[in-house]
């Protein structure tokens, strides 16, 4: 039950975008239409679910104090290890997508390699380390966060498709209005806080 609670929490309450602003760059850049947003969102879920547990294993059995050899604390290497795992996982996903769905590969274009520098992925691993999750919790947390991110980007993409023809002040068009809508969505998501299963 605790795991399920954590899962729901990380989708709605501790949402990667609305509560921590992680992965905003690709969130803003790839949210112009729903189809690409769905593709990128799915890729993020996939990479997050692979990398966070993998990084948990590396952290627990190699980096933590006394984990590898008695008296050896490698935790200062955490950032480099995490980012290396993430970069290689992204490379893998890129190869799979290219093989399985060339259309999606073409649509995601430059943004697929950019998942490597998507803050939500590294953020997932860093939160996992900071909050000292176990392996089950890490899995639930990363799946939940991925789905939360997916939800956010698909929602904003749908809204941006709708407002394309709205009469918005010129300087506010595009980036500015997207920020303000995201803020409003964040307020809406705040109403979930306090829910406990």
């Amino acid at each position, binding site marked *: 039950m605790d795991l399920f609670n954590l899962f729901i929490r990380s989708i709605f309450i501790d949402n990667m975008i609305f509560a921590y602003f992680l992965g905003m760059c690709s969130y803003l850049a790839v949210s112009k239409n729903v189809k690409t947003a769905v593709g990128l969102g799915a890729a993020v879920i996939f990479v997050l679910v692979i990398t966070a547990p993998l990084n948990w294993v590396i952290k627990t059995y190699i980096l933590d104090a006394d984990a590898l050899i008695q008296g050896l604390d490698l935790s200062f290497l955490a950032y480099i290890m995490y980012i290396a795992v993430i970069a290689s996982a992204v490379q893998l996903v890129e190869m799979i997508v290219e093989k399985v769905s060339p259309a999606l590969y073409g649509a995601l274009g430059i943004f697929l390699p950019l998942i490597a520098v998507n803050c939500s992925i590294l953020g997932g691993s860093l939160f996992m380390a900071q909050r000292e999750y176990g392996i089950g919790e890490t899995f639930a947390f990363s799946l939940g966060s991925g789905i939360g991110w997916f939800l956010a980007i698909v929602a904003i993409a749908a809204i941006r498709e709708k407002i394309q023809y709205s009469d918005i002040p010129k300087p506010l068009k595009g980036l500015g*209005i997207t920020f303000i809508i995201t803020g409003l969505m964040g307020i809406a998501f705040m109403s979930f806080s306090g829910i406990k299963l």
Partner: protein
Amino acid sequence: MSTATAEQQVEKKKGEALFSKKNLRLISDPLNENNPITVQVLGICSALAVTAQVKPAFVMSLAVIFVTAASNVLISMMRNAIPSRIRIIVQLTIVATMVILVDLFLKAYVYDVSKQLSVFVGLIITNCIIMGRLEAFAMGNKVWPSLLDGIGNGIGYGAILLMVAVMRELLGSGSILGVTLLPESIYVNNNLMVVPAGALFAVGLIIWAQRAHNKYYETE
């Protein structure tokens, strides 16, 4: 006497070359017309998350200026030796090393701020400004312009960060750097500015103001 003047002239000439108009533009452009946050749309994540108060925002800006400048210089030095296929990994490794230095430094000297910034120090690694500048500038330019470009973009980022932070702390907590400027008797704190949504509104408004001023419009 004559040699001294000659030397001075050489020095002056060198100084002019170092801070020529073109080089100065590398610093001044990112402050406004080519701002990394509001125009290039890079590095938004951390810009929003650390700006509830001015102090962490200030420390964060310094950290980012250091990391962009240092990794720009290092990559620019190595640019001819990096095979293009693995350049992303090389860049990430350099940036991660710089961030580890910053992290250890912060933990040693300003522990409370380091606790406040929590994971966002580590997330400098994936700050798109840094990767963006490495890809777009340092891979193709000499060391000195790369240093200036790094500093300029770092300052451009920091400027927006501080603007958002001042807005949020003043309106949300009625204080700047923890000093109360608007006591509760005159101004009732607006909690909206403290929650994450407030950051999004603040940045949205700054973008609006800046684009209206520069007449920079997006066409969709």
